[in-house]
């Protein structure tokens, strides 16, 4: 099982702040996410390392997907 965590408005896009997915084989992150998922100004961390929408995800991965923010 891979755990995906969504921060900020990206949680609204997928309708959940966390999502667990069971994968048969390594799958690109893009395929796991809805087609409408924004691809700009998004930060992806896979097991604390920077990833991309093309990164292959497999069971056991912990993924955080968050917007680029400014902090006031």
């Amino acid at each position, binding site marked *: 099982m891979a755990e995906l965590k969504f921060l*900020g*408005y990206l949680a609204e*896009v997928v309708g959940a702040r966390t999502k667990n997915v069971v994968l048969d084989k390594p799958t690109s992150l893009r395929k796991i996410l809805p087609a409408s998922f924004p691809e700009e100004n998004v930060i992806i*961390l896979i097991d604390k390392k920077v990833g991309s929408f093309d990164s292959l995800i497999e069971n056991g991965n912990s993924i*955080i997907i*968050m917007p680029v*923010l*400014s*902090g*006031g």
Partner: protein
Amino acid sequence: MKGYAGKILRVDLSNGRSSAEEIPDGMKRDFLGGRGFAAKLLWDEVKHVDPLSEKNKIIFSTGPLTGQSLPSSGKMVIASKSPLTGGYGDGNIGTMAAVYLRKAGYDVMVAEGKSEKPCYLLIEDEKVKIMDGSELWGKNTFEAQDLLERKHGRNSGILLIGPAGENQIRFSVVMSQKGRAGGRPGLGAVMGSKNLKALVIKGTGSIPNFDDEKLKEIGKKGYEEIKGKESYDFWVRQGTMQVLDWCNENTCLPALNFREGIFEYSKQLDGYVLEKTKIDRKGCPLCNMQCGNIVNDSSNRPSELDYENVGMLGPNIGMRSLPEVALLNRMADEWGLDTISLGSTIGFLMEASEKKLIPEKIGWGDFERAQKLIIDIGKDEGLGKLVSRGVRTASETLGKGSHRWAMHVKGLEISAYNCHACPGMALSFGTSPIGGSHKDAWVISWEISTDRLSYSKEKVEKLIEFQRIRGGFFECATVCRLPWVEVSFGLHWYPEYLEAVTGSRMNWEDFYKIGDRVYNLIRAYWKREIPQFGRGWDYPPDRWFEEPLSQGKMEGVKLDRQRFDQMLSWYYELRGWDQNGIPTKATLDHLGLREASKEMIG
């Protein structure tokens, strides 16, 4: 040049005289407005003076985009020689006063001298009066705002200080509209030192732009673009408060005086809690993405929250309840104290107590003691006296190694991002032109999206790019940066807006050059005012280099001093400064700062 009122209003509080003078076209071209005008005026006119003496000046400065019908333009820069840091100090504020100052026919207002008695300024177009302020003196910023609105009507822009400013507390701010604050480096104290409680500004005129029709059209398109952004609805609900969760996930939340980057109770303070308790939203004029979220505090009074004040008065001092944080924030706003510095000073005292360096017992998250400390700081009494000049001075007084965890740069308390594991952001704090502020280059988000723990030249280049855009362009054009950084509003709009306003076509290269000019002049100002100023002033506190994080995903991480030093050297090279961080003659001359070059180098 179109789009400017073209005048500086000067009021000498010592003799009651006021005058309006023309702003030369060259000054508009070279410095654009806002921070640029303020830096130029301070360089020319405020030299080697005590910041709390009548010789200091306080500058209220707008830019050509201020008050225009375009996104988030209701901004003003307030600047002075800082009584907290001793160097250049400024801050921006969203207020109707910015809009009305321009309508009254001025781009800039300069208050100088000192009134014998408490006073306030009433500016009604060309009429300027110094009014008796005795009735206002001692009132908190909410009471004083109400009183002035009753007297002069709600269609006026009001800037004012609270009792902390009157008492010349070094991190008191200028407030407006019950919750808006600006001028972190003690600019409230500068007003207090002049016996100036408030400015009331009413304006009925308008400033002719080069092409009003075009501006109306592209301004409207800008508002529409913002509203159509996918992140807009969420932004409207949480505003900057969404950053709390973001920082906790990324181990960069300020927890327990920046000791840690996560906080066990962050879920009790975050944007989702805010959403449930929110009663209203407010913010700056001419903004369609207002970020002031109002909640009822624990005593049922409204309090305007954003990330910075919750970060610093929440996890940084161990508070676990959002309504209680809201109450501390409300008190800070009433007293007119900067919430960032306040959170840092209270955190400093809590740590000093924990380490038994002071006899008083103040535990982390001690709500009762935190309230008492705010009053003591505002009055400069009791334990408040130790920290009312900021944590730098407090650590000098206390000694015992406390300077290692006095969380400031250049005397200004660091805002709400822990940088144990963010070297680029640490350098951003180190090189901010006012001290430990995030507003010039919030490079942390980019840093986390790339190679977070690297100390690369690319990181330094990105930092300078952000400083040019945020600290240069946005502060000088004097519009809010948040549409760009928070909902990805296109930067391409701004040259178009400026062209419609001024008639002059400028591109981002031009804006970068203006930003560089302003940064170099500010840097020269620090050196002129503080002869010992140099490289040593650009380092964040020892804590981030010496005490690794003990919790969270970045456990064990701290900054590497040698590699940070390398980044700082690259920063100086890229800026055209010597290795002591001082602009070279060639750099100053290249930017047309010949007077500064002559004065600094000869």
